[in-house]
């Protein structure tokens, strides 16, 4: 499909600039963007956080408060009407009528106290004059169009009674309910599991094709774009840096930023190779990143090798149960098994990845290793000793890095205090010693050692993850549990963190237990893979073996669901 001609454009944005007015500063979110979407077209808008892609989406429906924003120049027209000149009442008709929106998090986008029925009626009856009986018929049809088998039940359910994927289907059904000309989908599948994501994306594409609806898909995931979109706009710092047919842009990227984004993806790269990162100068807020992994002997000296004769870490029949029901005396009488008879082993200097979807028990397993939840049966062995004893040595040598660097750092502590907190256990090192150590750790993880007095909010997401890794390294661990360490980060930042982890592993022979749902990342970093499904390990082995020639049914489903550039081009 070629870019739309002027006549049949559903959405036309012309040289649009948008500023946010802060207390005493102005943030230029968009710096003159021009884009067009024709009827029936699926167009991707790709960029990392801060690129202005969500602002573009929200502004299309004028969903940004007018008192806090300013539009110096440019126009946005939907179906030939300039939305900038419409008043609130006219906009109401456009929103949900001609243009509808799908948000990232369906739980917050649906009203929790209303049934699906009421919420669908609300949208349908506002924009169409039909009887409630017809509205019900229409709703049920829309729901069954979304391949919802028991549409009747979903129709009468409250949002909390539905799974995340089901809620997103309801959102999409609602978005299609008034025969819109354009659907703006802002990261519609980011909050969902891979297998669910695949279903939702296919449905979205199918429905858009069938109803000739144009879709503007905002995402950071190039693979999703490759699989779904006819055309793509690449945004960077409030500008469109590249546009064109998906095949051309992703196959033969012209702009340096697009190339950098593609190179930062672990997919298709040699496992354990260092990924190219978007040049530091191109990313804002990276000034404090020093050269990766510098030397500092004081910190390094503490890492002691164990050797590969026996596994460093072993799980034998590990089982974790949570109480489900209690009797009158507060005793648990029935249990939910989160981790069921898991057997794994990990040798020093290697990476074992646990792959699975949300609820498969991978995080419960990690929590049991660090002693946050007890094992119901089975044994976890570290250097041949039972981990249950949790003596001080094992506690130091097994450290964890969490997924969300926002919540894993105390917002009130300067980072030198955060990074050295584990060193204060049972000892009282002097402030200067701790600061000295923190500076060394900063160098190890590629942060500016002069930044140790800053608070976490002064750092970007990737830098915060570096701080969290630094904290884990402070006690010279041998085994690091990495619980989705990159899933909250942008692609280019993810590449930096993966590189850092690989560098650290090479240097100190660290072992990683890497928990992730991202198959591409796992393929890149792991030596061994264990696939978890409903609390059990269904398949494990060398990562190359498991991920290219899966034998278990579930692994195959999982692999097929992952959107990849390769497959998109094969199609």
């Amino acid at each position, binding site marked *: 499909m070629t870019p739309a001609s002027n006549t049949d454009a559903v959405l036309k944005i012309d040289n649009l600039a948008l500023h946010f007015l802060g207390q*005493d500063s102005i943030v230029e979110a968009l710096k003159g963007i021009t884009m067009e979407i024709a009827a029936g077209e699926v167009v991707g808008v790709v960029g990392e956080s801060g690129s202005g892609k969500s602002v573009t989406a929200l502004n299309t429906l004028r969903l940004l*408060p007018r008192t806090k924003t300013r539009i110096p120049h440019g126009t946005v027209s939907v179906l030939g009407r300039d939305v900038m000149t419409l008043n609130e009442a006219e906009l109401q008709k456009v929103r949900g009528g001609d243009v509808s929106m799908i948000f990232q998090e369906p739980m917050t986008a649906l009203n929790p106290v209303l049934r699906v029925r009421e919420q669908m009626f609300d949208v349908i009856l506002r924009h169409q004059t039909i009887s409630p009986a017809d509205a019900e018929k229409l709703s049920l049809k829309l729901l069954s169009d979304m391949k919802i088998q028991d549409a009747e039940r979903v129709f009468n359910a409250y949002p909390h009674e539905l799974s995340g994927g089901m809620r997103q289907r309801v959102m999409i059904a609602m978005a299609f309910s008034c025969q819109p000309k354009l659907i703006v989908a802002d990261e519609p599948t980011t909050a969902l599991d891979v297998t669910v994501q695949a279903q939702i994306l296919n449905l979205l594409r199918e429905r858009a094709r069938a109803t000739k609806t144009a879709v503007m898909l905002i995402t950071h995931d190039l693979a999703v774009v490759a699989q779904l979109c006819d055309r793509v706009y690449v945004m960077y710092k409030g500008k469109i840096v590249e546009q064109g047919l998906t095949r051309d842009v992703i196959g033969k990227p012209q702009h340096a930023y697009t190339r950098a984004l593609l190179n930062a993806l672990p997919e298709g790269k040699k496992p354990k190779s260092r990924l190219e990162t978007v040049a530091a100068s191109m990313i804002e807020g990276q000034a404090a990143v020093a050269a990766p992994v510098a030397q500092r002997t004081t910190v390094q000296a503490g890492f002691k090798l164990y050797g590969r004769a026996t596994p460093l870490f072993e799980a034998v029949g590990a089982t974790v149960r949570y109480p489900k029901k209690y009797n009158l005396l507060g005793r648990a009488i029935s249990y939910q098994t989160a981790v069921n008879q898991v057997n794994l082993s990990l040798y020093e200097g290697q990476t074992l990845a646990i792959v699975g979807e949300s609820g498969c028990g991978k995080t419960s397993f990690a929590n049991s290793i660090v002693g946050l939840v007890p094992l119901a049966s089975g044994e976890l062995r570290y250097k041949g000793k039972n981990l249950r004893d949790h003596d001080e040595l094992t506690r130091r040598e097994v450290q964890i890095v969490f997924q969300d660097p926002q919540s*894993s750092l105390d*917002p009130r502590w300067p980072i030198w205090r955060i990074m050295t907190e584990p060193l204060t256990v049972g000892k009282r090192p002097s402030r200067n010693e701790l600061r000295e150590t923190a500076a060394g750790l900063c160098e190890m993880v590629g942060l500016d050692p002069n930044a140790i007095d800053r608070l976490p909010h002064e750092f970007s997401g990737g830098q915060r993850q570096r701080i969290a890794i630094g904290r884990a390294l402070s006690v010279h661990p041998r085994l690091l549990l990495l619980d989705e360490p990159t899933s909250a980060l942008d692609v280019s930042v993810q590449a930096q963190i993966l590189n850092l982890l690989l560098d650290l592993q090479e240097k100190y022979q660290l072992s990683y237990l890497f928990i992730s749902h991202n198959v591409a990342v796992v393929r890149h970093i792991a030596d061994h893979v264990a696939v978890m499904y409903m609390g059990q390990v269904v398949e494990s082995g060398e990562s190359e073996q498991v991920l290219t020639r899966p034998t278990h049914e579930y692994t195959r489903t999982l692999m097929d669901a992952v959107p990849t550039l390769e497959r998109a081009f094969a199609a």
Partner: protein
Amino acid sequence: MPENSKQPSDALAIAKTAGVSLNPLDPTSRFNASKLKQFTNTEIVIAFILFVTLVILAVFGSFLQTHDPMQGDLLKRFAKVGEKGYLLGSDHLGRDLWSRAVAGLQWSMACALTANVINLLIGTSLGLMAAEKEGWARTIIRQFTDTLQSFPFLVVAIVVVVIVGHGFVPLVLTLGLGAWVVFMRVVYAEATSIYQRDYVKAARIAGVSRSAIMFGHVLPGVRASLFVIFAFHFAGLLIAESALSFLGIGAPLGVPTWGNMLAESRQYLLKAPWMLMVPAGAIVLAVITMNLVGDGIASLSRKRGRSIDV
């Protein structure tokens, strides 16, 4: 940066939500004049001025009194405001209402402050203990709090006064031991959520002791709210103290407190309405001041909280 909250409250938050980088590494962003300006507004300035005035009156009150608050002059009964050398008039025994109001301020402030500190200590300790982990301690503390709250406070106060008698100490203890529920509830709610943060998990995994976690991570996390409740609760205690005194179960009779002055004014409401106006005005002014101070602290910590990104 998370992109899921779609209804941010101001431009900065919107810019953040939409993923616009605000250059978090600007080294000048921590302390500068514009930040200070951003944190102050007219309300906070008024609250500050009123609060300082109250504190000065409470501390240096003895030097500012024009008469002995207890000594009446029966020849100068019911002097109107400004008459016969009485700044705010005199009462039915010819005592200076201004001096009595200042004395009442000292009494009420001392009483409310002491009771408030006791409330703070009890409520915060119980809230932290209950929040730390599930178990019998949490159950007992929560049940106890609920029970206490369901008792009519006035009845308890009357019983205490009947058993222990009038006076500063019984009154402070009644208020101090009976009114900490609000502290416990707020601390419990906030501390529970902090205990679930990953940084607390990380500290536990590293083997940091329970007390170090409590005093290093959790207490600093609830500190801002404690300041706010302290100010609001102070206002509540001022009213409670006056109410109890008015009913005759607070301050001993004859002691110049606002509640006692109100009680005395009742019989002379038509003849000398200023006898009511002065203590009532004093209570209103003090309560408004403390509420403004509470609002001020709340808005300060909100603004700070936003830049901290809690």
